[in-house]
């Protein structure tokens, strides 16, 4: 099998991964970054047919100059923490990568909560719709509703407006009062306030609703309208598409597979220098708790500097990162999901698309784990990437740990991977 060795392996080329790679490479380390997308930037800085956002440019330039090597289109499928080895898959097949240290910067996934009609064509994840649009799906002139929760909604809505879409509404489930208090707490963070003001300016004229969430998406072959409940009052809108996202959840599958412990909120537990409980494995950015770009950049720099053995720099970043983390926590509290959202699905609402599981089959079951066993919810090809975070919210508890492989492989590749793991185990036990 092809093998690549380096000092530091970074998984994910979003802001946290880029920062970690820069920090380590600039300190003389040989850095390899693995990323499943076609180019650097992650979900947030993804370029596609449009140029990457301006904020990304200096980072992307620094990344190119750092000497870190980027392998795009390269998805990690399995890891062996004891041997500091990850296996990845690219267009040519499987690849073994080994390093002194590993930084997990795997980002986040959008949280989809099921509601009647959410599986209709034209109902998309907020981030997913943006990604689709960046790769060429035309939004100009389309009437698009944006619903769910979190700062991503405003960002997506503003982006859609900029690209010529007609945004019908932005429906945020959190109450205005809670968000106003959060905004007030930003008084000492002028940059964040300025960002907020800029977003709101771009969205002038767009109805911004609070304590509002989708009740039903209507349409036969495609969504044509959506009904919202705003402060308990029904409200209908005609739309060509609906972008929904109920916030982000840390992407922890690889971390879990490597044996990294999670905290109570389901994020990877890290110390003040971004170390996980597994020796020489760091985590940075959203996997350690949703905190946004600046948080991710700081954590990435911190992890990279720490992995490169620069304790002094790490110490400096650690203080700034702690502040950023506090901001992340406050953000989480401000946009906390309300209880009523658990009532969104009705009996016929699909909760697991892979296995066609309807809510009436799952509603009465006690836990996420039992739901998985009894209904096969989460056992399909996506292995619960979409439905499990929703089920955690709807039912509480986690189904169980992820089973290998992290991404579908052919049985032939699975055997090849198992053979290579066996070889490596023999080599290293001698």
């Amino acid at each position, binding site marked *: 099998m092809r093998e690549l060795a380096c000092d530091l392996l970074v998984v994910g080329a979003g802001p946290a991964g880029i920062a970690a790679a820069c920090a380590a490479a600039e300190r003389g380390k040989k850095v390899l970054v693995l990323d499943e997308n076609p180019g650097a930037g992650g979900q947030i800085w993804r370029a596609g047919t449009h140029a990457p956002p301006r904020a990304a440019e200096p980072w992307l330039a620094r990344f190119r100059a750092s000497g870190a090597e980027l392998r795009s289109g390269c998805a990690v499928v399995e890891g062996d923490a004891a041997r500091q080895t990850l296996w990845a898959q690219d267009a040519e097949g499987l690849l073994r990568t080994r390093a002194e240290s590993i930084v997990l910067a795997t980002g986040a996934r959008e949280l989809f909560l099921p509601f009647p009609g959410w599986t209709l064509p034209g109902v998309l994840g907020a981030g997913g719709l943006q990604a689709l649009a960046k790769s060429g799906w035309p939004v100009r002139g389309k009437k698009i509703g944006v619903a769910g929760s979190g700062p991503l909604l405003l960002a997506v809505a503003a982006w859609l407006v900029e690209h010529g879409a007609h945004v019908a509404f932005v429906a945020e489930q959190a109450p205005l009062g809670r968000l106003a208090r959060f905004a007030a707490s930003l008084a000492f963070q002028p940059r964040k306030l300025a960002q907020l003001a800029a977003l709101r300016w771009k969205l002038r004229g767009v109805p911004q609703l609070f304590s509002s969430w989708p009740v039903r998406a209507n349409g036969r072959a495609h969504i044509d309208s959506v009904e919202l409940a705003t402060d308990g009052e029904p409200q209908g809108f005609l739309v060509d598409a609906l972008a929904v996202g109920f916030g982000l959840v840390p992407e922890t599958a690889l971390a879990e597979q490597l044996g990294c412990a999670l905290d109570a909120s389901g994020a990877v537990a890290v110390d003040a220098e971004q170390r996980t409980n597994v020796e020489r494995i760091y985590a940075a950015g959203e996997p350690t708790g949703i905190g946004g770009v600046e948080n991710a950049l700081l954590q990435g720099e911190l992890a990279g500097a720490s992995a490169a053995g620069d304790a002094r720099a790490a110490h400096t970043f650690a203080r700034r990162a702690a502040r950023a983390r506090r901001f992340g926590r406050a953000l989480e509290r401000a946009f906390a999901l309300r209880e009523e959202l658990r009532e969104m699905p009705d009996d016929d609402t699909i909760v697991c698309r892979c296995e066609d599981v309807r809510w009436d089959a799952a509603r009465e079951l006690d836990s996420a784990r039992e739901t998985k066993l009894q209904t096969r919810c989460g*056992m399909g090809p996506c292995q619960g990437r979409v439905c499990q975070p929703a089920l955690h919210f709807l039912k509480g508890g986690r189904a169980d740990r992820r*089973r290998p492989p992290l991404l579908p492989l052919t*049985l032939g590749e*699975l*055997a090849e991977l*198992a053979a290579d793991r066996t070889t490596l*185990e023999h080599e290293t036990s001698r």
Partner: protein
Amino acid sequence: MKPRALVIGAGIVGAACAAELARAGFAVVVLEAAHPSAGATACGMGHVVAMDDSEAQLELTRTSRSLWEELLPELPENIEATRAGTLWVAADDEELAAVHAKHAYYLTRGVNAEIHDQHSLRSLEPHLAPDLIGALRVPDDLVVYPPCAAAWLLALSGAELRVGLAVERAEARRVLLHGGVALEGDLVVVAAGEHSLPLVSPALPLHGIKPRKGHLVITDRAPGFAQHQIVELGYLKSAHSHDGSSVAFNLQPRPNGQVLLGSSRQYDRTSDEVEPAMLRRMLERAFRYMPKLRALPAIRAWTGRRAATHDHLPLIGKVGAEGPWLAAGHEGLGITTSLGTARLLSSLIAGTTPPFDPRPFDPQRLCAEASHG
């Protein structure tokens, strides 16, 4: 008032016992440490199969299979019961001879079976390797989805289910819980798989049930890839290897087109992690029988633990002179034999004529085995 039966364990065997005892007029309480089907029932294939490892095994599996057959019209859709049939494939002349012997034996025992040669085998399952020279097809073997089958049997029993209870000790008429609480009943059935013997120790030796780890892989949907549960004839050889580890080709097409692939056997494994060396051996074995498997997308691999006894027969009967009753140690056949086990146990409890010779299943044989060395 109805007599009260306490059943420990809400896997497929405990669920079947609960249903049978309820039918016999007991008010049943099922005690479960985790949640229903949390153990081996969650991990296996759900192949309901006649197996002829021994005369006793064939009696138990054949009886059980016909009990499943009787239930077929009632089973809800989520159990996904299908009459897939089993194809026992032969790779060489020795195994082909075994096909013929098995065929003759099955016919004398009233188990439908038919012999296929190399040519007709190809038309039954085109993806099998062309050098496989024959097979025995057992058309009446079934496939079910075990966790839903167990849940259905539990619901059928009307039993009161108490989850999250850690049982420390089972006696003839009493169950002691962790923390000193006791539950009383008119009888107690231990159906806790590999966790059963510690509950009745020292009446039976603890090593009478050993966990035997197995690996499984499931693919994405590939409708039409295979029609039968396909097992290599060397499967029994693998099942018999007492020392070390073994693999055997065992494939099941799920009704939705997914393919479940096994099998492996290992004693003395403490970790439930997927082990690369075993996974590789198991997959290579499967590729030898069905080379085209290599191209199917695998979505998940996992492991489970079978509760195995030294003679590959479950422990069904009374522990000592007083009890409690035991229904455990079903190894890889718990789904198949759950119904026959429950039927036998219920007749032993009632003192009626058992459906087949109960002696080979008597748990007391463990004591004899222990004293012999």
